[in-house]
């Protein structure tokens, strides 16, 4: 547990900042919703009528006039992108930072097996994602209560689970990459998260590239689909979880035998 606790302590300020930023933005979005919906009665039609732009964000298939529809898109952008970046930062730095900061020599010359170090670091990454999501859910619940909006708990829960799983996948994939890095390149992590995000937008715009949704974890966080189907897309999710598993297995395989510089 020592490595786990140490990781949480080291990541504490980053976690607080990211959680506060994402919660704050999400909360603001929710609180301004009543204002928006009364001022613009046919806001839904307007958003749905912006051609490719609507299509890119799935807004053509969503009822923006309803709270869940609005929340789905807002949530998709704030928690989706923010959470993905945070997860990517956690994952990509988890193993590589030790070599970058030259602390690997300190950590790995203690009587702690590498498998244990990897396990505890992975647990710490997951724990931080859980904390972030719990905080975000709490702020969302509070904001929804404040504006007095009725929201379908089941669909909301589905949306939050989708985003949580997406962050886990991003973290797991970048964690796997992290085992191969020596310089702890944050750019690779952030870049990968951004590529995933745009992959989904491309898949929304061009039908021939629909297969990209299997690759990007944003495929199964598409709020329009979740609200319409009342479920996550099993196919996208299965491929995503498989990718996550590969990332974790690679991390154990590579870091277990890596020459530490």
């Amino acid at each position: 547990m020592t490595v786990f606790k140490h990781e949480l302590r080291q990541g504490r300020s980053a976690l607080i900042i990211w959680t506060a930023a994402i919660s704050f933005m999400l909360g603001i979005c929710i609180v301004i919703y009543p204002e928006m919906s009364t001022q613009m009665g046919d806001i839904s039609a307007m958003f749905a009528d912006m051609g490719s732009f609507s299509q890119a964000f799935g807004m053509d298939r969503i009822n923006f006039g309803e709270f869940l529809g609005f929340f789905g898109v807002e949530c998709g952008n704030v928690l989706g992108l923010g959470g993905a970046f945070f997860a990517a930062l956690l994952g990509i730095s988890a193993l590589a930072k030790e070599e970058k900061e030259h602390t690997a020599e300190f950590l790995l010359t203690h009587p702690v097996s590498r498998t244990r170090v990897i396990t505890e670091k992975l647990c710490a990454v997951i724990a931080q994602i859980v904390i972030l999501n719990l905080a975000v859910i709490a702020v969302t619940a509070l904001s929804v209560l404040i504006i007095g909006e009725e929201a379908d708990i089941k669909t909301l829960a589905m949306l939050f689970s989708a985003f949580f799983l997406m962050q886990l996948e991003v973290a797991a994939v970048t964690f796997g990459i992290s085992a191969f890095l020596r310089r702890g390149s944050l750019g690779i992590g952030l870049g990968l998260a951004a590529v995933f995000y745009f992959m989904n937008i491309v898949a929304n715009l061009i039908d021939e590239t629909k297969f990209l949704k299997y690759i990007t974890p944003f495929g199964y966080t598409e709020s329009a689909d979740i609200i319409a189907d009342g479920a996550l897309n099993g196919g996208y999710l299965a491929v995503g979880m498989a990718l996550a598993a590969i990332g974790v297995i690679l991390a154990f395989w590579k870091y277990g035998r890596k020459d530490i510089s």
Partner: protein
Amino acid sequence: MNAVVTNNLTKYYGKARGIVDVSLTVKEGDFFGFIGPNGAGKSTTIRTLLGLIAPTGGSAEIFGKDIRKHRTELLADIGYLPSETMFYSGMRVKDVLRLSARLRGTDCSEEAGKLCERLELDTSRKIEELSLGNRKKAGIVCALQHRPKLYILDEPTSGLDPLMQREFYCLLKERNEDGATVFLSSHVLSEVQRYCKHAAVIREGRLLACDSVEKLGHTGAKRVTLRGVAAAPELEHIRDVKVSAEGVSFLYGGKADRLIKALSALPITDITIAEPDLEEIFMHYYAKEDGGNDGI
């Protein structure tokens, strides 16, 4: 029992040479020095022993156990001081010491307190505020606080002032007298000569010699520098003659009285006779490797 045994230990980084066929034995209770210039393979050997890097060939045992199979178990008995001591930034010294103890599953706060006092280390300071020497001290406390059976120290005195170096070697000597084994690398011959019982010389990845320090240090040769003369005296056992405008300098490996007699006839204005420096010791081992014929 042997504390450390390596058999033809070899490490290549891709095609780059790390160490080649290093075979050495360190007995339990020994104070062992590992001498070599920078890039000779000292750190590579040490890092292989600690399991940070995997050897490409050969094997090594610590306390009779294979380092690869029993790595975690063995690390509990080892105190390691890296050549460049790095810690997590943002932490205070005492937190680092506590973290190290926790990673070992022990509480060594009492021992840590004693060590910090002797090394004059302020544990409330933050790691990034520390000077190189103070960071080294924190590393020393980390390596010593759990009183391991084997100390593996990579260039332990770099960055320490002479007084601290002495205190540090005092500590090591005490531990050694209590039965612990010390294995340290250095490129400073004098400290190895002063404190170590046995030593090994490594150069360009290969072990050149491994013997007791007396035998290694006393190559028999002295560096003789004369002023006022232009050429070395006609004597046997002279080599590496360097002539300059002020005088001449050479390595002499023969009997002292012959040298004195030969010198007495010369118009010498100044003379120094000193132990050869590290580089010359290496030259000596090179000469041996090449089948040197100057009898030194």
